Each structure stands twice: as structure tokens, then as C-alpha cells.
């Protein structure tokens, strides 16, 4: 074997070793909050400086607003969100029997709108949908991510895990290469986070706005120069299912603040 051939075998071994990424052990889980600067932490910690609370206020008003042909508000069925919605966002995405697949919180809200309120569903990333999901998410703040152990969600979980480690885009990168293998290291001056879903919907300073987890996933895919999926697509929900199971036990921070 020539020296060149030996070297390429070695390179191949190294590459295969690094692509077989391992999931982060429970003891090493850390929220993106841990990597924030002092100012951004202070912004998130105080409800009068956290801009995400502006959406939560809108959501609180929407919760009580009657809508649709049914002339019903969320509160008419669910009562006081502070009690009835506690812990709810921590266990989403959840399996929806009538659709036969898992749905995320945004889709749950829109199902409620279509079926119970007989109203037009909100579009993804609309101010109304973000406001309601922020308000509902806020009720679970501090609760630990607790995805349902529903066997019917297993295919979605497997698909999400597969998507997470599948290389995509012109840069030929997978989610796992950054967020499993290289978290804690620097990428262009920023710390690579573990990529957990516990703060969403969150206020991103770069967006100068609040956005959903799917917007963040879309952002990452554009960064990898891959074609993003449609909002609400099965792929994104599968990824959400996997991310929630991957971050199991982290406290909900909705609405978090991130740079």
C-alpha cells in the first residue's frame, strides 16, 4: 500500500468516526441560556425588559377574544390559561388521533380554531399565532420538557432523528455535526449551542421580533444552503418531536431571548 493510500484510509476512518455522532448525555444538557451574554440574560430574566412579553400580552387578550362562527373564545372552553395551560407546551408536539400524526402547538391552536371556533386558521408566523403560542408557552415556564411517550409517535421520532443527522444543502452539513459534535465551540465568534427547543417561541435580537422553532429551523437550513421545508410540514414536526425528546428535562423558558 502506498503512503498516499494509507493516508486516505486513515482520513476515511477519522471521517467515519466523526460522522457517527452521539446524542448529548442527559448530564451535559444545557439550555442556550447558559451561553448568553450578561445583558441578554438580564433582558430575558426581567419580564418588563423581555420583549417576548409584548407578544404574551397580545396572546392574553386573544385568549379571551370571541372568534369565528361559534362566537367562542379560548377561555370559554379552557378557562383560565394560568391553570389549564400549565405544562401543556412542555409536552408538545403530541399525537393527534383524528389526523393520525403528531402536531405541534401552533397546529393544535389552529385545529381548535377550525373545529371549536369555526374560524379561519392563523397563518404560520402571524402575529396572532405567535401571540397565542407565546401566552400558552408562558404558562409552562419552568416546567421541564416532557414529551409524551406515545408509541404512535415513534415513527415521527425516528424520522426526526434521521433528519437531524442527514447531511443536506450545498454545504453538505447535518444538524448533528454542529449541535451534537461541536457544541460549545466557536462559530464566527458565537458559541455553537446544543440546539434545544425549550425557549420557543423566542425573541431573537437579530430578527428584531419573536419567532417560532420552525422559523429557527428554516434559518439553520438557509445557513446550510439547503432548501427549507414549508412551515407546518411533516419534516419540521418530526424534527420538533426529536428535538423535544433530545432536550427532555430542560426547563421551558418561553419567551426566551437569544442574540
Amino acid at each position, binding site marked *: 500500500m502506498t503512503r498516499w493510500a494509507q493516508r486516505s484510509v486513515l482520513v476515511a476512518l477519522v471521517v467515519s468516526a466523526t460522522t457517527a455522532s452521539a446524542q448529548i448525555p442527559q448530564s451535559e444538557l444545557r439550555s442556550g441560556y447558559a451561553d448568553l451574554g450578561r445583558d441578554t440574560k438580564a433582558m430575558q430574566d*426581567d*419580564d*418588563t*425588559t423581555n*420583549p417576548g*412579553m*409584548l407578544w404574551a*400580552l*397580545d396572546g392574553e387578550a386573544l385568549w379571551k377574544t370571541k372568534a369565528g362562527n361559534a362566537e367562542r373564545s379560548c377561555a370559554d372552553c379552557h378557562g383560565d390559561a394560568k391553570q389549564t395551560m400549565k405544562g401543556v407546551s412542555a409536552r408538545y408536539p403530541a399525537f393527534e388521533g383524528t389526523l393520525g400524526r403528531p402536531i405541534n402547538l401552533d397546529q393544535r391552536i389552529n385545529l381548535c380554531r377550525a373545529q371549536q371556533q369555526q374560524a379561519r386558521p392563523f397563518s404560520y408566523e402571524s402575529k396572532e399565532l405567535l401571540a397565542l403560542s407565546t401566552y400558552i408557552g408562558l404558562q409552562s415556564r419552568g416546567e421541564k420538557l416532557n414529551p409524551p411517550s406515545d408509541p404512535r409517535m415513534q415513527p415521527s421520532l425516528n424520522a426526526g432523528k434521521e433528519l437531524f443527522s442527514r447531511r443536506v444543502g450545498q454545504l453538505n452539513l447535518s444538524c448533528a455535526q454542529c449541535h451534537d459534535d461541536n457544541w460549545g465551540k466557536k462559530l464566527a465568534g458565537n458559541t455553537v449551542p446544543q440546539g434545544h427547543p425549550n425557549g420557543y417561541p423566542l425573541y431573537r*435580537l437579530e430578527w*428584531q*421580533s419573536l419567532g417560532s422553532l420552525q422559523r429557527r429551523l428554516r434559518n439553520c437550513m438557509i445557513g446550510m444552503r439547503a432548501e427549507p421545508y414549508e412551515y407546518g410540514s411533516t419534516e419540521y414536526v418530526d424534527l420538533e418531536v426529536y428535538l423535544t425528546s433530545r432536550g427532555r428535562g430542560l426547563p421551558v423558558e418561553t419567551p426566551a431571548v437569544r442574540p
Partner: protein
Amino acid sequence: MARALINVPAQAKRGEIITIKTLISHTMETGFRHTSVGATIPRDIITTFTCTYNGEEIFRADLFPAMAANPFITFTTIATGSGTLVFNWTGDNGFTATESSTITVE
């Protein structure tokens, strides 16, 4: 309607320096951006913020297109007496918002 969050201490000692924090929802559209077909997105910003303490103006700020969305303004003042602080934001397209907060000074 614009949402605002105000943080004023409920109680203070006379002569004490108190910190006031204000946050308001606003897009702060700069007027320098264009749509995908090249049309200018018109400027839509908050231009002035004022705070009065028992009717007397204690803080005023002019805002410009470089300010971030949902502007957060914090400042300090001396607690001179019990009463009301009134916060007022005005801006493009007839934007106005008013909030108030009470303080007890001993």
C-alpha cells in the same frame, strides 16, 4: 394597539434615585428598506418619547431610524413625591401611546 411594559418601583424614599424601564412594541421601520420589487418601505418610527412626573417633564428622547424594533428606554430620576408618572410615545403616521404608573414616596 401598541403594547407597553413599564417598570417603576411602587415605593421609594424621598430623595432616592429610582430606575425607570420602559418597553413598547413598535416595528421601527427605517424607511431605508425596499421590497422584493424595489419599492421603498415607508419610514414608520417612534420619533419622541417623554416622561412627566406629577406634570413636570423629567425625561425626553428623540428617536431615529437606527433604533431597534420594540425600543427599550431606561433612565433614572429622583423620587421627589408621591404621584403619577406619565409616559408618552409619538411617531410617524399619527402614532401615539400613553401609559402611566403611580409611585408612593415616603
